[in-house]
């Protein structure tokens, strides 16, 4: 899953260690999240979103946008 964690972190001038401390996870976790090696659990994704004052889907992209049936505007159909 793609994400904007690295950009959001850099915009705030935080190191990976700073972000790890703020989220209560290891620095290796932040590195794995940023490099896309690991997808966070829902609770961690919400914690990240809350920390940056954004919605989960503004930070994480599930790369399913190309599937018309999964687009939010089709959900009500």
């Amino acid at each position, binding site marked *: 899953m793609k994400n904007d964690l*690295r950009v959001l972190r850099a915009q705030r001038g935080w190191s990976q260690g700073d972000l790890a401390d703020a989220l209560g*996870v*290891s620095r290796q976790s932040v590195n794995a999240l940023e490099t896309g*090696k690991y997808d966070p659990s829902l609770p961690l994704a919400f914690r990240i979103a809350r920390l940056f004052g954004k919605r989960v889907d503004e930070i994480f992209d599930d790369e399913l946008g190309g599937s018309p049936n999964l687009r939010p505007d089709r959900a009500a159909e």
Partner: protein
Amino acid sequence: MQSAELAIENAETSTSLGTGFWAGWAAGMATAIGTFAGAIYLFTQSGSPGGPMVGGVIVVAFTLALIAIANIPNMVRRKRGFGERMRAPYRRYALRFLPAMFAYVLLLMAAVSYANSAEPTGWVAWAVAIAPAIPLIFAIRAIFLLPREEDDEYMRERINRSYVWATGATLMVCTTVGFLDMFGVVPHLELWVIFPMWAIFMGVARCLPLGSR
């Protein structure tokens, strides 16, 4: 991407390990595994030099050494040295695992020595034989408590994956060797070898990169 972001990225991504490092690490692992296999072979031979007690201690020492060697790239990549303060789950793990392994070495030596000299029978023979297994059971318990107590989900995932990988590899090797043994192609494999084998596979698996799901 802006230059500041690039600087942070370059400074904070995992340490890249060079070809020289991996060559040295592979040579070290190959030497340790070769010596380990030799020690097991000597231990399974009745006329081994130094007797079964020495063989057993060598096997235990090499098991621990192999686990340590296998974990070196992981430690280097994380820029973590032996002296750095461990996180709580790993501290608890070390406090459970290391005394258990120490007790295992002592009990193994005592049991082999007593069995050789006194040649016990009946329930005493059972007690002597089972004594070295008891601390190992506690060591295995420590290994399986680690992912339960690890509060970092990514690290927990890595541990669990290494356990699954090690279990699969151990089952494959033991099944294959079991049939080779049954057909008389290879010497008999002692069952106690399974745990050190699993631990080695686990140590190697811990160094493998965790791919994205």
